[in-house]
């Protein structure tokens, strides 16, 4: 069973539908016990970091999320979920994150007015190194992004994929042990996004 973490941060239907399509058993839940018991955990989310962290605290999910990562359960962050696993975000006047991964989340400040914020659309992800999550996907393939902020991990060794926007080359996929996180939305990235999610459901972490 895959637990899709529900913390009132946007629409989780697409993640569930993508996993349904792959024939994977998944449950949308906000119960810490269900999250801790899951074989794998997906931590999605859209919206603002401030509201998301408030909801996580109000629902008592912070400890469960840290624990599940620490005990080795394969864990996938998506978009806002990815951003709040870091230590801090510049959003909403500065927000403290879960601190599961070292680093911060920064806002795009385009010098060129043609670079709009949010970045909305398909951008390419250059693979920094091979990884089981990239099985069957070519480096440079495009995935669907919707975001105004981007992850800046402290440890370069965590960066698995990179994407360029507004004169910034940012970490669009990060990983550490059993944890992986994408800034793009695999569940909205067509066939290749489904392949990425399928790779996650089969990922054997050390």
């Amino acid at each position: 069973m895959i637990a899709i973490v529900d913390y009132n941060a946007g629409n989780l239907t697409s993640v569930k539908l993508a996993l349904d399509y792959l024939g994977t058993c998944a449950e949308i839940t906000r119960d810490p016990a269900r999250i801790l018991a899951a074989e794998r955990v997906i931590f999605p989310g859209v919206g603002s970091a401030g509201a998301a962290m408030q909801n996580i605290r109000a629902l008592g999910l912070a400890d469960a999320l840290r624990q599940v990562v620490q005990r080795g359960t394969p864990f996938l962050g998506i978009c806002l979920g990815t951003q709040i696993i870091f230590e801090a975000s510049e959003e909403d006047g500065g927000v403290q994150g879960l601190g599961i991964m070292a680093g911060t989340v920064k806002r795009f400040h385009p010098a060129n007015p043609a670079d709009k914020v949010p970045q909305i659309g398909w951008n390419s992800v250059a693979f920094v190194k091979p990884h089981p999550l990239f099985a069957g996907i070519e480096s440079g393939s495009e995935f669907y992004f919707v975001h105004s902020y981007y992850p800046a991990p402290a440890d370069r060794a965590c960066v698995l994929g990179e994407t360029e926007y507004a004169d910034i080359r940012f970490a669009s996929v990060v990983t550490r042990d059993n944890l992986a996180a994408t800034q793009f939305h695999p569940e909205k990235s067509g066939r290749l996004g489904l392949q990425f999610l399928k790779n996650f459901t089969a990922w054997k972490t050390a």
Partner: protein
Amino acid sequence: MLTKRIIPCLDVRRGKVTKGVRFQNNVELGDPVEMAAAYSAGGCDELVFYDITASAEHRPIDIEMVAAVARAIHIPFTVGGGITGLADMARVLTAGAEKISLNSLAVQNPTIITEGAKAFGAQCIVLGMDPVKMPDNPRFPSGYEITIRGFRERTGLDALAWARRAEELGAGEIVVNSVDADGTQQGFELTLTRLIATQVHIPVVASGGAGTPDHLAAVFTTGCADAAIIAGMIHTGAYTIRQIKEALLAKHIPVRKKW
């Protein structure tokens, strides 16, 4: 590099996709779910569904159709038409749509943009606007007036002023649908698109007039659009999405190549 998005538009009327010129003489083209699946497999980057008669007939949006589309495709899609408030927006998003397009409702009640952005995130809230050319009228400094209810009513709003206001209110994206170009397949309204796209800081989607790949190339370069809506040129089979993308790539316009 961020690619330019190509977005087929499916106008749905009584459960079928239709196509008309300036919202008139509509003919049936097919089943929305089947067409969405085919265009997604064919390489479109997003889809937009307008329940085009909902607003005028005061009917709710067809949630079953939205849910069926969400099961069939795994790329973003927008739903517009017939949205009466936050509860409708929640139903459409929960059914699996990525974005809501607000048009007439936003003109009548602009705070719905802010409320929607606050409740669901700005990325979910698309302002759809239908400007018509109004040259040499001091009430409309941009040269365009906003119309609503399928071009049937004028609003007295200047197109550029309304676009800026929508951005301030929290819209995540703006679809600029030229009333004058809609359904003609004679090319996008480049002046209008460029005016809006260069004056707001959120992505602008051009709509109305797509007939050839050259029209898309022009709206992505001269028009400064971030994305473009197409309809007749693929609904009739005149072009495939692959053909359109190959023509754009030949002109060095970045588009998604693998799907």
